[in-house]
Structure formats: structure tokens, C-alpha cells
């Protein structure tokens, strides 16, 4: 009897509607998606080729030298970078590493380029903040796999849908932290800036962004790490890289190669994390 109450409304065709909507977007905007896909594919292949053309020894050395300087002239991070990258090379995963790194690089860059302005907008307008915050919550709580589906619908398979999916998944921290960082700038500094007659733009670039820099960098660090995790998942829709090795190992239950590729991802993650973090610390001191 009680169930009948719940059954009062027949199943609402939400899934169908979403599919219809996605189809409509795919069809209506294919004039946009297709050239976008082509352009980005070319760009990424170009970047990957460029990075891949550099001899691995040279890459390892450059990374080690940079690591040495940004970690405050200590030897831990450079040593780890040398050993870790050499291990990846030794396991014949170098090309996959370059592909993964390219994806992370492009996805993170796009996330930052899109995320910071949105974060600034949120910090300036209560309405914008109220509207964007739930969207960010939605983007971050939705299981990441779900993004793969529209990504495929819009862009087919390959690198571009991978970047698209990780863009959705990885942008929120940059947006949130930019908003937070600017809102945390002490009121007196804002007053000082206003009292001397700054325009809104002057205030943003001379006071708010420099003051929020550390917070924004923390957000970017998170974005990069999320992009990395998404890029691995994106191998399910044909994105190249280390993720693909993990996926194929999973499909064939090959525990050995699975772990080796996994370790490669961990090494890349640690190096990227330390690099982005120490960029932040360095700016704190200057």
C-alpha cells in the first residue's frame, strides 16, 4: 500500500533527457568540437614529440638540476628524480611517461587559465560565488569515470577527450583556492589600496593576486595532482600514457606490469608535486 504512494509518479526519464541533451550538444556544436579536437590533437602531439625528441639522459639531468635549485640546494629531491626517472627509462616506459606528462601539462595549464579568472570572479561577486560553488561541488563529487562518457561523445577517443575530462575534474581546486586566497587578503590592505586611489584592476594585480599567490599555488598544486590521476583514468577512452599500461595489465590480470606502470605514475606524481610545491615556497621568501 505504502509503496503505491511512492509509485504515484512513474519513473522520470532523467537518463534519457541527459542523453538527448548530450546528443543535441554533440550535434549542434560539432562545428566547434571537431576543429577543437583537431587543433588540440596536433598541439599535444607536437608537444609530446618535442619532449620525446630530447634524449632521456638530458631530461633526467635537467630535472635533477632544477630539483637541486628549487629544493634549496639539497640533494634528496635531485637524487630521487635521477633514480626514479632512470627506473622508468629502464622499464621501457619512457615514451608513456612523456605522453602522460604532456597530457598533465596541457590539462593543468588549461585548468589554471580557466580556473583563475573564474576564481577572481567568485571573489568579487557574492552572487557568482553562490552560483559557482555548488557547480564545483558537483564537478568534484561526481565519480570521475562519468566524465569520460560525454568526453567521448564530444571528442571521440584519444588525447583530447582525456584532457577534457581531466579539465572538468581538476579545475575546481584552482577556482576555489583563487577565490579563497583573494577573500583572505586582510581588509586593511584592501582599504590601503583603495585609500590611495587604486582602480579595481590595479588593486587586483598589485595587491590581491600577489597576496593570494601562496594560496593560489596550493590550489594549482592540487589541480596538477588531480589532472594526473584523471589522465590515468582517461586511458580507458584511449588516452596514451602510463595509464594505458595499468589498464591493459588490469584487463589481463598481469600483476607485475601493472605495478611497474603504477610505480612509474607514483614517481611522476612525487616529482610534479614537489616541483609545484617548492615553487610556492620559493615565492614566499622572495
Amino acid at each position, binding site marked *: 500500500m505504502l509503496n503505491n504512494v511512492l509509485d504515484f509518479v512513474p519513473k522520470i526519464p532523467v537518463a534519457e533527457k541527459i542523453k538527448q541533451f548530450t546528443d543535441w550538444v554533440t550535434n549542434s556544436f560539432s562545428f566547434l568540437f571537431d576543429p577543437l579536437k583537431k587543433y588540440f590533437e596536433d598541439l599535444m602531439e607536437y608537444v609530446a614529440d618535442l619532449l620525446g625528441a630530447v634524449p632521456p639522459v638530458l631530461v633526467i639531468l635537467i630535472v635533477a638540476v632544477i630539483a637541486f635549485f628549487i629544493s634549496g640546494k639539497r640533494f634528496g629531491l635531485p637524487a630521487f628524480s635521477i633514480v626514479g626517472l632512470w627506473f622508468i627509462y629502464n622499464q621501457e616506459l619512457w615514451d608513456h611517461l612523456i605522453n602522460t606528462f604532456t597530457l598533465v601539462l596541457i590539462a593543468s595549464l588549461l585548468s589554471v587559465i580557466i580556473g583563475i579568472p573564474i576564481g577572481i570572479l567568485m571573489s568579487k561577486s557574492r552572487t557568482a560565488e553562490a552560483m559557482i560553488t555548488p557547480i564545483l561541488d558537483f564537478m568534484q563529487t561526481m565519480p570521475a569515470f562519468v566524465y569520460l562518457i560525454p568526453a567521448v561523445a564530444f571528442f571521440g577517443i584519444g588525447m583530447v577527450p582525456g584532457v577534457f575530462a581531466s579539465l572538468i575534474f581538476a579545475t575546481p581546486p584552482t577556482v576555489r583556492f583563487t577565490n579563497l586566497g583573494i577573500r583572505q587578503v586582510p581588509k586593511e590592505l584592501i582599504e590601503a589600496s*583603495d585609500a590611495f586611489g587604486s582602480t579595481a584592476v590595479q588593486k587586483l594585480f*598589485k*595587491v590581491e593576486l600577489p597576496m593570494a599567490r601562496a594560496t593560489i599555488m596550493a590550489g594549482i598544486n592540487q589541480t596538477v595532482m588531480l589532472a594526473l590521476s584523471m589522465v590515468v583514468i582517461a586511458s580507458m577512452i584511449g588516452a596514451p600514457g602510463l595509464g594505458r599500461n595499468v589498464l591493459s595489465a588490469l584487463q589481463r590480470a598481469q600483476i607485475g606490469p601493472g605495478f611497474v606502470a603504477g610505480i612509474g605514475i607514483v614517481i611522476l606524481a612525487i616529482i610534479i608535486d614537489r616541483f609545484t610545491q617548492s615553487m610556492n615556497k620559493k615565492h614566499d621568501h622572495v
Partner: protein
Amino acid sequence: MPIIEVKNLTKIFGKNPAQALKLLDEGFSKHEILQKTGHTVGVNRASFSVEAGEIFVIMGLSGSGKSTLIRLLNRLIEPTKGSIFIDGDNLSKMDKKSLREVRRKKISMVFQRFALFPHRTVLENAEFGLEIQKVPKEERREKAIKALEMVGLGQYLEQKPNQLSGGMQQRVGLARALANDPEVLLMDEAFSALDPLIRKEMQDELLDLQGTMKKTIIFITHDLDEALRLGDRIALMKDGSIVQIGTPEEILMNPANDYVEKFVEDVDRSKILTAQHIMKRPETINIEKHGPRVALERMREEGISTIFVVDSKRNLKGYVTADDASEARKKDVRDIEEILRTNVPKVEKDTPMYDIFTVIHDSPIPVAVVEKEKLIGIIVRGSVIAALAGESEVSTNSAE
């Protein structure tokens, strides 16, 4: 003409200030309005004017609306009602662009917690205002360095603010405000965050600087001693309203109401009051006309044991005691000069009371108050004690 003129300036915090404004006009108090409408009256119809070159102190306890008032003056907080004229232009009606111009050229501000930009060096902080105005780099650098040298920080150009002590940081704040060469300086509790010794030093320095710069300074403080030290005039605020405006003396001597009186009670009067505030009208005899007989007679009439002797131009000649005068009469001495004592304890009319203590302590007779050798009053021990106790009658005696 006053450089700043404020008329009926009102700020009400809340969503519907119109209603609160109406209640305010009907004479309801800040407290009643808060209860009835949930609106806070920040500043209630403040009116005053500030002359060019003046240090105008706005004083009140926390919550009295003084910080809101100073922020209304450069519209960091938008006024609800009323007007602010600077050089005759109505600031409260200006569009954003003209307001920016005023902030850039005419009004600079110094903040309680310094509000220095931590990511900029001392020099970069000082040149901030000029940078905002897009002054060419060389020129702004030069002006900023000059301002920093004025406050004694020429050696610290490349330091970051957090490497400096509190007092030095506020000097940077001051230099940043001065680099713009504004007409008006707004100082919001500028020295309140400093420890007492440094604070005093900064007050002295501000007065020194003011001696050469002749800016118009509007200074906010909750500290009456500071207000009295710095202010040419003081406005006292309570519950968003200005309850009294006057010179430090006027406020001390004639508190407008109980509130001001309470405020003033705690002041160390010995540092504020001077000889002329506590002196009494002197009993005198004229050296050219009077002899010991008259002297004795006058002393008997007034019930005193010494009397001061002046000439026709009231120049102080000395004093005679009752004993000497009585002796002289017995011996039939006619000339007062024979019994005249000239070692008169005396102070100038603007000697602070603090310094009178020692003089009066060592003196068996009243202390003479002089202005260019003219006797204008005397101080007896009783009036010193009365003044310290805060009796307001002391002021009536200073009228002469």
C-alpha cells in the same frame, strides 16, 4: 576657509537605512534604533570643519564611531546621508573617477595596523601611491626616498616590512602617505598599536614633521593623553555623535556633559594644566604709593601673611611679610623698600603644573605667576590641590 567641511554626516549599517534614518530624525537613540530596526547607527549627524594646517583629533572609546567617521571622509565607507566638502568640492557626490583623483592627490591615510604590503620592500611600499598614479619610475622613487628620509628610514629601503619593528613599520606607513604630498592626512589610531615609549616618540616626531609640513591632519585616537598632546582641536564622540568640539583646554575645563567629564577625569591634569589655569588674583600694594602701614592693613583685611609689591605698571618688585611690616610700623619706617624682599618664587604663566610642584614645595609664600615680569597671579598650595582634584572652578580664576 576650512579645507574640510562635514555637514550632518550619517552612516547607518543595515539593509534599509531609510527607516532608521527617520527614527534618528525623530530623536530615537542609537540603542533604541538597534532594537527597533536591527540597524546600527555608525555615525549620527556629525558636523565639523577642519582648517588647513590644523591637527584635528577625533576621540572616543571603541564603538563610538570614530573609525567609521574617518572612513566616511575618504569614502572607504559610503555615507548614508550628509556631505563632505574638501576644498569646496562635495566628496559625497563625486563619481568614482573624481573620488579616485581626490584619494590620489588630496587625501592619504595611515592605518592602525600599518597595512603595509608584505610582498613589497619598504621603498616599494612608500612609492605605492605614486605608482598607482603612474608617476614615472625615477620620479616616484625619488619622492618615496625623500619621504622615507623624512621619517628616518633612509637606510632601510630594501627591507621587507616584516623585518622592521612596529614603530619603524608605522614610519613606513607615514612615509607612504606623505610621498603623495597630500593636503590632508587621515590617521586612524595610527600609534595605538605601538608600545607607550615608541608611541610618545612617534607623537613627538609627528609634531616635528607637522611643524615643517603644515599638513591638515585628522587623527583618530581613544587615548585622551594622545589627543591632548597632538590636537589643536579635539572632537569627542559617543554613540556615533560628536558631543563636544574644542581646544584641549576647553574640553578639560568645560566638559560639555557628564560623558566628557568622565572621560576627562582620568587625565593626568598635572601635565595639561599650566600656571595660568590655577592661579588666583593677587593681592598687591604699589611700591610708588604705599608704605608698610597700608601693607599691614591690606594683609589684615585679606587674612594673609605676605603681600606682593608691584609698580604702577604691575611689574613685580618683591613682597613684604606681615612681621616685617609690623616691625617697620613700630620703628616708624615709611619706605616700603626697606622691608622689601626680592627673592620671590615665580613661574611663567605657561609653566605646566607638574613643574610648579617643586617650586611651591620649597616656598613658604605663594608663588608668583608672571608674564614678562608683570605679576598676573599667584598660586597657593590649596589651588594646586584643588586643580589636581579636578575642581572646575579653577578655570574661572584664569580669566584675567
